[in-house]
């Protein structure tokens, strides 16, 4: 109950923040969330959900909502240069000013009071006329103002309650002065250099009826095309804004010839990589499990413990260690190669070799897991089955192929599919060993020879030469998800069939 009170208090505080920053979507989520939460704790019928609610909140907030949000972003052009909403961009342009040729420049002095309110005294650089700017208004300088005393000797001005900002101190308030805009006739007075204010004109006006942005200096109209205000002859105004682009990202993934080539290559390698890793590490792991699966074997536990070590080491450590060991010039592996065979191998710089090396490293990382699950499954196969097979005259290999493997597959297939899905998205290993390199010449997107889909996505979102293409990256993430879901679904159906066959 007390917890609920505190939570509500926090929620209200957050809600105020949301209202002031006008994030109404999030506000709605918050209100509904809190409403549900209160109902939960106060209602009897919702008792079971009380246990569930904390998990659900996390699940909805940071798993399900992001999934939906990913889908949403994949349909927009969200990327560097198109990050803001249209309203913000319009406002941004409407806040832009330019210096007309017939501008007037003012030297100024600034005065601050105790509360840091600022008064500016502006002096026309040509005519010497004075103006006074205060609280967003400009008025002619009034020497009769009771607060003001003008020193008759050097014409310097004192304002009662204010002190003049002297010398270099101006630099401390210059960022504040930059934000000041005073309407002046039908123009605006703003800071132009550190020492000067000047008369500006607004540069852009947005017309809601025709949805165009007009450059007031040149008279050119800009109409929004694909989230950028563009003039008739193709000139674009930066920044652009976020718009809905529908399925365009997906279409370009499959239709745009150059992107499709990148996508195809990355996808093919991703599949080879995950299938290759799983098959190789499973073979090795199963082999070792068969060796270990003998109760009379001495030092069995010691062997098992030592063999698990690669699996226990955090991947980010082993990946970096392997990268060092495969280093072309200094790594131990090439040093040995030079000693034994007299040549060095470009382990990580040749596209094909880099791929092979990566699979090799992944086998090292994951064979212990395969060994452990195989051991468990082996031990659950009843001994009688082997005896029956032996009586029927089956040799060792036949027994393995006809009894062990099919039975293992029933219980291991789901785990192997899981491993496949994990390898499919094993960003850490790829990224820490090769970062997707070596680069591929002529690629339309940042896709290296060893990039798998997820690292390709990461690059497009966070590292691309073309800025952060969040929309496109999200589209690829959705495609990956669909692929994995399909593969898993087929896999599970397949294992179900397996089970039926062998039951």
């Amino acid at each position, binding site marked *: 109950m007390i917890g609920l009170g505190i939570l509500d208090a926090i929620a209200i505080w957050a809600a105020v923040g949301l209202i002031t920053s006008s994030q109404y979507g999030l506000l709605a989520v918050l209100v509904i969330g809190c409403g549900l939460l209160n109902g939960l704790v106060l209602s009897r019928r919702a008792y079971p959900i009380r246990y569930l609610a904390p998990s659900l909140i996390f699940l909805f907030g940071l798993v399900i909502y992001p999934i939906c949000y990913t889908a949403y972003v994949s349909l927009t052009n969200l990327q560097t240069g198109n990050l803001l909403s249209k309203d913000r961009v319009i406002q941004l342009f409407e806040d832009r000013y330019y210096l007309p040729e017939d501008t007037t420049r003012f030297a100024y002095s600034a005065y601050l009071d105790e509360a840091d309110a600022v008064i500016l005294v502006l002096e026309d650089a040509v005519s010497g006329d004075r103006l006074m700017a205060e609280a967003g208004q400009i008025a002619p300088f009034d020497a009769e103002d009771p607060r003001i005393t003008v020193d008759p000797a050097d014409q310097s001005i004192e304002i009662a309650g204010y002190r003049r900002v002297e010398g270099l101190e101006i630099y401390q308030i210059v960022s504040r002065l930059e934000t000041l805009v005073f309407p002046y006739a039908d123009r605006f007075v703003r800071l132009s250099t550190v020492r000067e204010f000047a008369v500006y004109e607004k540069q852009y006006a947005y017309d809601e009826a025709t949805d165009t942005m007009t450059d007031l200096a040149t008279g050119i109209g800009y109409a929004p095309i694909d989230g950028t205000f563009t003039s008739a002859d193709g000139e674009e105004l930066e920044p652009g804004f976020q718009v809905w682009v529908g399925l365009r990202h997906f279409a370009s993934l499959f239709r745009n010839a150059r992107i499709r080539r990148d996508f195809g290559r990355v996808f093919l390698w991703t599949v080879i990589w995950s299938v290759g890793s799983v098959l190789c590490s499973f073979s090795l792991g199963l082999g070792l499990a068969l060796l270990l699966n003998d109760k009379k074997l001495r030092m069995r536990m010691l062997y098992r413990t030592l063999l698990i070590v690669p699996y226990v080491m*955090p991947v980010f450590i082993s990946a970096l260690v392997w990268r*060092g060991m495969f280093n072309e010039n200094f790594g131990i592996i090439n040093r040995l190669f030079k000693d034994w065979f007299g040549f060095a191998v470009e382990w990580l710089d040749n596209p094909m070799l880099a791929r092979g090396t990566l699979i090799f490293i992944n086998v090292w990382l994951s064979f212990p897991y395969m060994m*452990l699950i195989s051991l468990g499954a082996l031990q659950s196969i009843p001994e009688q089955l082997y005896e029956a097979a032996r009586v029927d005259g089956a040799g060792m290999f036949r027994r393995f192929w006809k009894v062990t493997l099919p039975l293992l597959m029933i219980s291991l297939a789901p785990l192997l599919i899981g491993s496949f899905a994990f390898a499919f998205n094993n960003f850490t290993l790829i990224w820490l060993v090769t970062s997707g390199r070596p680069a591929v010449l002529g690629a339309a997107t940042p896709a290296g020879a060893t990039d798998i889909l997820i690292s390709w996505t990461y690059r497009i979102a966070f590292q691309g030469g073309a800025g952060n293409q969040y929309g496109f990256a999200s589209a690829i993430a959705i495609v990956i998800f669909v692929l994995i879901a399909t593969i898993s679904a087929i896999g599970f159906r397949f294992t179900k069939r397996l089970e039926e066959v062998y039951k």
Partner: protein
Amino acid sequence: MIRRLRTDTVYRIRHILGRCVRHLLLWIAIAFALFPVLWIASASINPTSSLATQRFIPEQVTLDHYRTLFTDPNYPFVTWLLNTLKVSGITAVGAVILCTLAGYSFSRFHFRGRRVGVLAMLLVQMFPQMLAMVAIFLLLRSIGDWVPAFGLNTHLGLIMVYLAGAVGFNTWLIKGYFDTIPRSLEESAMIDGATPFQAFVRIMLPLVRPILAVILIIQFMASYAEFILASVLLRGTDTYTLSVGLRFFTEQAMSRRWGPFAAGAIVGGFVILLLFLPFQRLIVSGLTGGAVKE
């Protein structure tokens, strides 16, 4: 008679030979498994800090690299390690609490949407959370605008993200464990006057301790090793976790920083090894859960 003796000996020799081959193969596999670990351990106590001149058996043993590692102001390794311990520790404890509550609810209470809920949990955890990295990044960035403590580059934000990712699978795991415990235990406690919550805390929790330990440790190890989300969300060297930090450390001039890196790898790996070895059986049973049909 002679013939029988001979087959006996042949059989025995073959048996012993088989044994030897078996041990030999296992030792080869162990050499393969341990070589990188031993190599990096040796690098961390080698006097040279260069990748090119490291020897397997160091000429002399030195702890210089550890000293460099712990004192280098540009690469605050200690901060990274503490950050990682903090993030993974809180995530692990949080995940255990959340998943125990949720798993208990799914296992014991009957309410509308229970079946759908269990199924949804399973489905959701099929979607790897990192696929939504862009969305999570954008989400945390906008959260950070009004609650900076949960925004980008904060540990709280990262912990929340990890927790959310941990909920699906572990809830499911723990629900299965609760299912194996007979209902009559709580029922009798409640007849003796315990509230449902008391029955849960006093009776059930002690019984499921093993699975809680498994989840605690597995979750700790998972967050400890997590890289992609941390590298998307953390943006300053002082907030880095170990995985992002070590990557940052080796990004340039890895071959010259090999020694200190090796020391870092050993320290980082040691933490996990220390946690893993005492609970080996428990963790293995958790990790390979579902492999063995009862």
